[in-house]
């Protein structure tokens, strides 16, 4: 259903949706409601079942290896159940509310996890956190729910930035910009050379536009306002939100017009082929890049607009949470402790192909210059945000997709667009 989620590796295999007939769909809806049984898996103190949405071949193999190692250690047994990410996403509420749910789940930190915690569906994993004393405070806060207990264990995170090819920037004779003015000047230079400066991929993956909104908002209004806005405590038709779009409009003429029509994977291809200058995207885009191009890639942080606003960066965090109804909390926590450890995280980072940073500060990330630079950028940030949907909910994301793609098409109608966005968001918050 949706490529709208920015989570890593969710972009493949989403097309396998059966057509839902009118009645068929309503029966499907009700089937969800009446199925109190769900997947029947673990029993008693037997194997801990882990439900994973890491279905790309490398990530799946990496997880299998981790679970195998864990089983070999004799601290318990676990069985891995890998599910296509889209199925996983739509089924997660059903898993968690079923009478006999799987024990452990891969998921994302932030509101998307805390929502489940507020419904008392998640296991309190504060015990596990007792042994994670060296984790940074930012990750601890991120994994803590409204009632003050930890419900999430992070595995790794990644960053967003303006990616570009070093060889192309050298060829065009341009440098990384430091602030918004320099950024616009860079765009102008590239445009004068006949290169569409800013690549984007909104066809099929409209959520990519949310990165622009997130970044402009945290650069102009700051991360706390951004979070409040996404939690429904501020309004989208607020003048402060309009200011975000006024800035965005300055950059709008430099967007690749073809970007509306193709998905971010093709925008990646365009960037690598030198058909666009730069591309605001998360590191997962490199999964679609040929290995020989990786060495030529570099990035710069989203330009500073107001130096008075504390520096914040997007750093979506992936990890695990457990069902409150698990029959084997001890085994589940043992597995979580293992997954949070240095050994497991290093093994995962090594085995999975992507550019990710391990959550455990003692675990070594890859030593490629790109990863070192990314880690330094996140370490420098005063605040970390997750991403639009992770800081709000998957339900709010479509309202952003509609508003932002419409703005890119019709920037003149910004007042009407923001009013519609607020109305759409209110419906989502109301439920």
């Amino acid at each position, binding site marked *: 259903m949706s490529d709208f989620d920015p989570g890593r590796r969710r972009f493949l295999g989403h097309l396998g949706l059966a057509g839902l007939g009118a009645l068929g*769909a309503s029966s499907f*809806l009700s089937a969800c409601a009446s199925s109190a049984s769900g997947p029947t898996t673990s029993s008693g103190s037997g194997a801990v079942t882990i439900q994973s949405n890491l279905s790309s071949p490398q990530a799946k193999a990496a997880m299998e290896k981790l679970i195998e190692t864990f089983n070999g250690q004799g601290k318990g047994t676990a069985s891995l159940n890998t599910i296509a990410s889209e199925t996983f996403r739509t089924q997660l509420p059903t898993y968690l509310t079923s009478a006999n749910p799987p024990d452990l789940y891969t998921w994302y930190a932030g509101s998307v996890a805390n929502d489940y915690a507020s419904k008392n569906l998640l296991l309190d994993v504060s015990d596990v956190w007792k042994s994670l004393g060296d984790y940074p405070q930012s990750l601890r806060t991120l994994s803590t729910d409204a009632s003050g207990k930890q419900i999430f264990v992070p595995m790794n995170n990644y960053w967003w930035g303006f990616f570009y090819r070093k060889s192309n920037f050298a060829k065009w004779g341009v440098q990384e910009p430091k602030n918004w003015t320099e950024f616009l000047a860079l765009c102008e230079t590239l445009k004068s050379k006949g290169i569409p400066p800013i690549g984007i991929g909104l066809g099929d993956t409209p959520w990519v536009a949310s990165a622009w909104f997130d970044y402009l908002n945290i650069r102009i209004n700051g991360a706390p306002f951004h979070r409040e806005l996404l939690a429904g405590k501020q309004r989208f038709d607020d003048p402060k939100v309009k200011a975000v779009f006024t800035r965005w409009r300055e950059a709008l003429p430099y967007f690749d017009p073809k970007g509306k029509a193709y998905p971010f994977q093709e925008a990646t291809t365009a960037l690598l082929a030198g058909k666009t200058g730069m591309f605001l995207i998360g590191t997962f885009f490199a999964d679609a890049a040929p290995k020989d191009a990786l060495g030529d890639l570099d990035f710069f942080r989203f330009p500073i607009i107001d130096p008075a606003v504390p520096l914040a960066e997007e750093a979506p965090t992936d990890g695990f949470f457990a069902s409150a109804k698990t029959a084997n909390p001890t085994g589940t926590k043992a597995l979580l402790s293992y997954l949070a450890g240095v050994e497991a995280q290093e093994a995962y980072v090594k085995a999975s192909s992507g550019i990710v940073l391990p959550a455990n500060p003692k675990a070594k990330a890859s030593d490629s210059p790109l990863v070192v630079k990314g880690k330094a950028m996140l370490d420098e940030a005063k605040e970390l945000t997750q991403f639009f949907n992770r800081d709000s909910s998957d339900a709010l994301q479509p309202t952003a997709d509609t508003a932002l793609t419409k703005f890119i098409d019709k920037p003149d109608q910004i007042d009407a667009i923001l009013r519609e966005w607020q109305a759409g968001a209110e*419906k989502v918050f109301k439920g």
Partner: protein
Amino acid sequence: MTATISTTSVTPTRRRRRSARLSPLLVAFVLVPFAVESIWVFWPALQGFWFSLTRWDGMTPPTFVGTDNYVELAGDATFRGALVNTVIWLVLFGGLSVLGGFGMALVLQKERRGVGFYRAALFTPVVFSLVVTALVWRVFYQPDGIADTLLRAVGLESLIRPWLADPQTALYAVILPALWRQIGYVMVLFLAGLKAIDPALHEAARMDGANSWQRLRHVTIPQLKGVNAVVLSVIVIDSLRSFDIVWSLTKGGPYHSSELLSTYMYSTAFQSLRLGYASAIAVVIFVLALAVILGYLVRAFREEA
């Protein structure tokens, strides 16, 4: 029903008394499918009606809100847009596939050399899953893709646009692949109908001096009545449940411009997690389908009576 008819007709006088007592096998034949159908179709369908009167996120128990969802539907601009698009879809997709399918069937009904090839060629798209169809057409529509290249070749660059990303063209760009597939299907239905027409009727009409248009109007079309009912039902149902092709090409976007009721229902249910509201949309779709089909059936029965 057919079973009862056959028992009464096959069994003459002596066994008539026994037919009052239903054979257990017969009861089983009726009740078992009915029970299965009840569990998997009727009960969930009824539940759908109930959910349309609730607010429900799929996790916490549904809360009853009366007709709130329907009141909201009445004022929902996206819903109205989706309804209009569904009507456009019904008219264009339904109408053109009937016209195209019927035309193709007429052209290809005569056994000539090579006709099998054309029939097969037109029917081939039906064999592909719609998702595969969507992938193929996406390549066709992509920037600098086949569509753009063709337009450039004939000097119509000015028409080039992001077909699936332009709100003016998105809906029509999705209808085209759907039609491409449906025409072959409708053609096969009509071909079967045409084959069943007694050639003697045409022979007689020709003897009476009817030209080919008159024969088409007064012989062929009336003779196809049975097939028409099937085609109409298929078209209406296929239009209202069109989902996969739209979802795989545009997901109803950009900004709801190619949204159909079916895609809106899906995104409301599984993206916005507003299952009560989505159920209300499902009920509307159900009522629409029922109204169109019942309307036709009532008329058809009245003509027969």
